[in-house]
């Protein structure tokens, strides 16, 4: 293993985060705080409990997931897309590093940044909402698996994209709608039967449900199934990354 290379990529990517602190960290925290204020403190006080949980507290896992999915994808996709765009990718491709080491460096940095944002969002939420974490170890595990998996997914988007528009299109047109419709703001049990079944095809349902279980011990779907779905998606992403590096797709001519 070329540990120096992993460290170099990781430090380089994290330094970009510290250099753009307002955009990287402050902005997502502010956006999520606005959700807490509007949906939690303002509207939430007029909403009834869901599954015995105050509405303001109920939406925390969903909002956390909404932010982390977007951040993981955008961090990782930009991290690998920008060297492609600027041409500096030549250095990574000509270095004595394996695809695995490149992925650990870029995806590790993107996931780390997302975890930092997640922790800060949770701390910020405490200012507006009273919530509990019933299974903290599982919560951290779910967050880790989710940020790593979606950073991998973002990495793939960054490798695939050949312009800035493509970089944005999947997070905006696919991930955000799936998160909003995946039970971030409601329990899928509140939906009519037909839509409950349709919703089960939305992979984000399993992420939010699993994370909500780690907070409050209630879930829309079985927690073991949620975990399995995340792992399956992670394996799919890993397989796709492996294929991209093996063939040089969008990396080498």
């Amino acid at each position, binding site marked *: 293993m070329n540990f*120096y*290379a992993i460290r170099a990529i990781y*430090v380089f990517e994290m330094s970009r985060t510290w250099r753009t602190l307002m955009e990287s960290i402050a902005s997502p925290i502010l956006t999520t705080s606005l959700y807490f204020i509007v949906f939690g403190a303002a509207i939430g006080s007029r909403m009834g409990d869901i599954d015995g949980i105050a509405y303001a507290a109920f939406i925390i896992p969903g909002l956390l997931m909404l932010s982390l999915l977007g951040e993981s994808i955008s961090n990782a996709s930009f991290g690998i897309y920008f*060297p492609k765009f600027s*041409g*500096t990718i*030549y250095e990574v491709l000509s*270095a004595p590093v394996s695809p695995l080491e490149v992925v650990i460096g870029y995806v590790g940095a993107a996931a780390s940044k997302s975890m930092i944002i997640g922790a800060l969002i949770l701390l910020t939420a405490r200012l507006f909402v009273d919530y509990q974490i019933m299974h903290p170890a599982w919560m951290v595990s779910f967050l880790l698996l989710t940020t790593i998996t979606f950073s991998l997914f973002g990495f793939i988007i960054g490798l695939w994209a050949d312009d800035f528009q493509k970089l944005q299109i999947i997070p905006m047109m696919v991930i955000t709608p799936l998160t909003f419709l995946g039970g971030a703001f409601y329990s899928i049990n509140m939906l009519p039967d037909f839509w409950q079944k349709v919703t089960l095809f939305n992979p984000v349902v399993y992420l939010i449900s699993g994370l909500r279980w780690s907070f409050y011990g209630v879930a829309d779907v079985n927690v073991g199934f949620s975990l399995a779905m995340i792992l399956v998606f992670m394996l799919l992403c890993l397989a796709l990354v492996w294929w991209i590096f093996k063939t040089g797709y969008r990396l*080498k001519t």
Partner: protein
Amino acid sequence: MEPIISIRNLSKTYASGLCALGNINLDIHQGEIFALLGPNGAGKTTLISIICGLVNSDAGTIRVDGHDVHADYRKVRSLIGLVPQELATATFESVWSTMNFSRGLFGKAPSPAYIEKVLRDLSLWDRRDSRIIALSGGMKRRVLIAKALVHEPQILFLDEPTAGVDVEQRRDMWEMVKKLRSEGVTIILTTHYIEEAEEMADRIAVINDGEIRVVEEKSVLMNKLGKKQLTLTLQHPLTHIPSELGEYSLEILEDGNVLVYTFDTQKEHTGISELLRQLGKLGIDFKDLHSSQSSLEDIFVNLVRK
């Protein structure tokens, strides 16, 4: 001695159908400055990109210091430094951090002392904390060279190193390259500047349309393919070349006022003294004469036209 880079039957055709390289065979020796000379689109950058791992080849093998570029890619790549043609830099990073990144990427432990040495050698030490975006084009080029050298490579690829660089900086770069060679680094440069190859290279390969036309020591190449000419400015114009001079390769120029004799530098006897005696006998006087040798540029143009 085994060549440090050995290329056998290498070929590459892009998806567009463009045949960039066709059955290239080439050996590059340790410690030499090797110039790949060719016009734009000849295949120079494709060739070095394949060696460095940036482009996939269709067929053929490449061994670097005895190691296969695919099977032993870690060993091979740690030996190589690459300075790309484009000014591809992490624009928002400082010079210092980008140097640390490059050294780490190539698997070397951090060494502030070595980075300082490289930056000082390239007159970048005073700009170590500057963001790359704030540097001039020449400085960015030097940053790319510094990044390529920071992991202490044995082989340095310079892809069009002086493109867009002013005359003074070009001279500085040539000096730097010669210094690196004196330290034992093998240097492969691609260029379409003839004077660059003529100034620096020990050996030259002329490449065109994806094929290597010739590989020779620079001096041998110039001797073998270079022509020498004797130019005589005549007292009185000639209308035609007298039949007595038929055995000489002569040409009348400038309305008969200039007579040019082309001779082979490889031959033992150039025939100049005999020609001058004949001219005297025929009463053809001249008021000036000078000789000249084909430049590498002339040789290059001839090879590329073939």
